[in-house]
């Protein structure tokens, strides 16, 4: 009879490849993340952060992430791993806590954890030509850096790496795996099919995973709508010229944008951010006072230490006025028909379906945010985004908007070429300057 688990020898190899960064066990992140006292200390330190100059929205964001990490790592709530575009309202509504390995990979990139995770993934025979966000997520799970999932949910739409890497993670953990098939073209029939899948997955999870039930679904949707309302105000404020918020920082908060819809912590974060932006605009205290150019940033960014944004925002006085992955593309959720509403949210993702949907979204953002140029961060291995580069370039050229396809890697610092990126950005900014007449 065939043995179909992941061989323990392979797991050990992955863990060895991940190595051990800290000399003392207690200082290792994977150990700290599983200690109750670590979260108590971190929570107690939050007011000190404010005293030392941290903004209220930054503290609110940390509080939101800490709460979820504590729930996930300490096992206070069932942890459900999801790919990036699973509606997290479903997980919070069931009483679980979501964990997005590909988003966590961005956090890991800021420490040595990404390198360890990538090594662990390569030890499992995964090609370095795959997207590093997914490789780091998978390697992190194999190396024991992630919490233990009670179940895994993925969607069939964006992107291939997310669903396949999470499938492997579900096998490592020996937990249930669910895939929501998202129809390519929206229609009533498509919505009904997807809604029935979501309902089926929710019902099955409530039966199979202790601690989950559907009782909190309405509350999660209500929280999501509240956060969306706040977020739309934030987005409106970001249309201000000059930009009231640094895009390099905004790109860090894409993590929460992907992760926290339905969470009790998201609405306070966006409220605090809104207040901060209002105060910034009222006081004229803009991060780039003499803003020369406004850019729209597509896809993610390098999350390890890089001088790219210092150059762009400092030396070039150019703002990332808005980001593609910060665009709230869905309408308010309908509490009377939660599953259909979540289905509509998933299908309204502009990255899914014919590329004209993405082109329309980008054209809208260019218009709304007074954009001078568009930069796509061409994440190595990201076929769904990079595959549209030629079309984007053609379309934007016809509209008279310069476009830069900037090769790089968001997680794997070995593949990031900072000097080359700065050179290309510099040339792009020169082009924008020439168009403006100097």
């Amino acid at each position, binding site marked *: 009879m065939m043995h179909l688990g*992941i061989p323990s020898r392979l797991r050990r190899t992955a863990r060895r490849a991940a190595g051990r960064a800290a000399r003392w066990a207690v200082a290792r992140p994977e150990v700290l993340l599983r200690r109750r006292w670590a979260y108590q200390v971190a929570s107690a330190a939050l007011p000190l952060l404010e005293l030392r100059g941290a903004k209220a929205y930054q503290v609110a964001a940390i509080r939101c992430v800490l709460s979820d990490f504590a729930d996930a790592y300490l096992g206070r709530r069932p942890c459900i791993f999801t790919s990036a575009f699973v509606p997290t309202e479903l997980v919070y509504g069931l009483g679980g806590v979501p964990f997005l390995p590909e988003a966590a990979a961005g956090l890991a990139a800021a420490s040595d954890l990404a390198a360890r995770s990538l090594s662990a993934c390569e030890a499992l025979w995964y090609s370095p030509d795959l997207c590093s966000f997914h490789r780091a997520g998978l390697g992190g799970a194999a190396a024991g850096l992630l919490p233990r999932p009670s179940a895994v949910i993925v969607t069939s739409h964006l992107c291939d790496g997310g*669903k396949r890497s999470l499938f492997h993670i579900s096998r490592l953990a020996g937990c249930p795996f669910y895939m929501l098939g998202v129809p390519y073209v929206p229609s009533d*029939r498509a919505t009904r099919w997807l809604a029935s899948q979501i309902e089926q997955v929710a019902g099955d999870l409530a039966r199979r995973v202790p601690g989950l039930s559907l009782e909190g679904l309405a509350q999660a949707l209500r929280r999501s709508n509240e956060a969306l309302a706040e977020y739309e105000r934030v987005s409106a404020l970001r249309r201000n010229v000059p930009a009231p918020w640094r895009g390099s920082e905004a790109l860090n908060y894409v993590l929460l944008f992907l992760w926290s819809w339905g969470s009790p912590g998201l609405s306070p974060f966006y409220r605090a951010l809104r207040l901060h932006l209002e105060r910034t605009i009222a006081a004229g205290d803009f991060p780039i006072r003499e803003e020369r150019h406004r850019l729209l940033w597509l896809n993610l960014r390098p999350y390890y230490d890089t001088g790219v944004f210092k150059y762009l925002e400092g030396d070039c006085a150019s703002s990332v006025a808005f980001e593609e992955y910060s665009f709230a593309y869905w309408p308010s959720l309908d509490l009377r028909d939660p599953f259909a509403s979540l289905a509509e949210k998933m299908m309204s993702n502009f990255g899914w379906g014919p*590329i004209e949907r993405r082109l329309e979204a980008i054209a809208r953002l260019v218009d709304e945010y007074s954009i001078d140029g568009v930069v796509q961060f061409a994440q190595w291995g990201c076929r769904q985004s990079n595959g*549209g580069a030629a079309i984007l370039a053609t379309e934007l050229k016809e509209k008279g908007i310069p476009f830069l396809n900037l090769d790089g890697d968001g997680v794997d610092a070995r593949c990031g070429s900072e000097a080359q990126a700065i050179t290309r950005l510099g040339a792009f900014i020169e082009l924008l300057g020439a168009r403006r007449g100097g």
Partner: protein
Amino acid sequence: MVLVSCGYVPLEIPLALGMPAKRAVFWGPGPSCEAYLPRDFCSYAKAFAREYLQDERIAMAGSCDAMRRACDALRYFGLAREVHFVDVPRACGSGAEAYYAEVLREFAQGLAGISGRERGGVGTLVDSVDGPSFQRRLLAVTRSMNRLRSGLLRVFELQAAGHMSAVDAMYLTLGVNDALGGELKGDLEDPRIAAQPDGRRGLGDGDEAARALARAAAVLERTMHRADATGDGRARDQGVRVGVSGTCLLEPALLGVLEDAGLAVAFVDSCLGSRSFGLEVPVDAGPHETENGADGARACADADGPGGARPDPFRVLARAYLSKPACPRMFAGDARARRLWALARSSGAQGIVYFAPKFCDHAYYDFAELKGQVGEGEGLPMLFLEGDYGSAISGQTLTRVTAFREMLEGRLGLG
């Protein structure tokens, strides 16, 4: 002619509409496509980015992120006259079947629009895709395709038994594929084609799809006949047996390298191999069948129509195709690993050669999963090779294959 990008898209549909159709196979290095798609795209997706002839239509499945973007590029840059996107689900199950049945119906409607326009008005060949004439034609085509698939499966069985080289078997498969696409026109005068009933029954004489099916059946029959006549039916000396797996694997070059290196190919798990030819769409002519073969058709045990009414033929196709042996793009749990292991055991394969087109994400993930389960888990050696079309015959590949053979022989005590 309709060029189809994926084995999950039934050729039966365009053929039933009178349009020759084949799986798109591209030869040699493709034209540069960097104006349309990035460099780090798999060679199969990139190969689609080319200008097509006026009579070539493309049916692209949502196989992966790269193919979706290739489809966008074809449409946006107007490289092909017609591009149809076929949204193939990633899993099977009743909901997915029902959804895919509707996708196939819309695909047929889209093609029927072309078919009608070309012939000066809808309804020359079929009334509508839900009408009796289309269903009658679909039934006839499906039967012919079942016979072709069954014949090709038999070819690979003979090949596995050593009666035919794997390269020859793959070339035969490609020949049948070309014939279905209305190519191999030189065979039109072959009297055996005129005698082939397969493509004609239920279709009528004057239609290109009928001729394509007849030619495909003739190509298959002629090769088998030639093998008998030349005495090539003897089992050859066998080397160490290996199975071949991968994503699309649409060219014989890799198989040639394996055989040149002295390995015997025990099975080919690919789109043009056992994954597709093991499929039989359940079309069972019942007692009420008319001369043209439609009314009494009982397409599958689970009749979808009320009160034993005729089932929806698109649902039947959807179910059959989604249920065929899973390819790397599908989510079927451990089914792929189980099947590969079963194939290896039943065929006596001592190792697996896995071929991936460079930058094929599905292949990268699939290999790692299979390597963990079948390779490391079961101790079956696996060799991973990647390359573009045509590059499988590089000296480097041959060196790696030879080393793999030596390793296998060492394990078997044959060295």
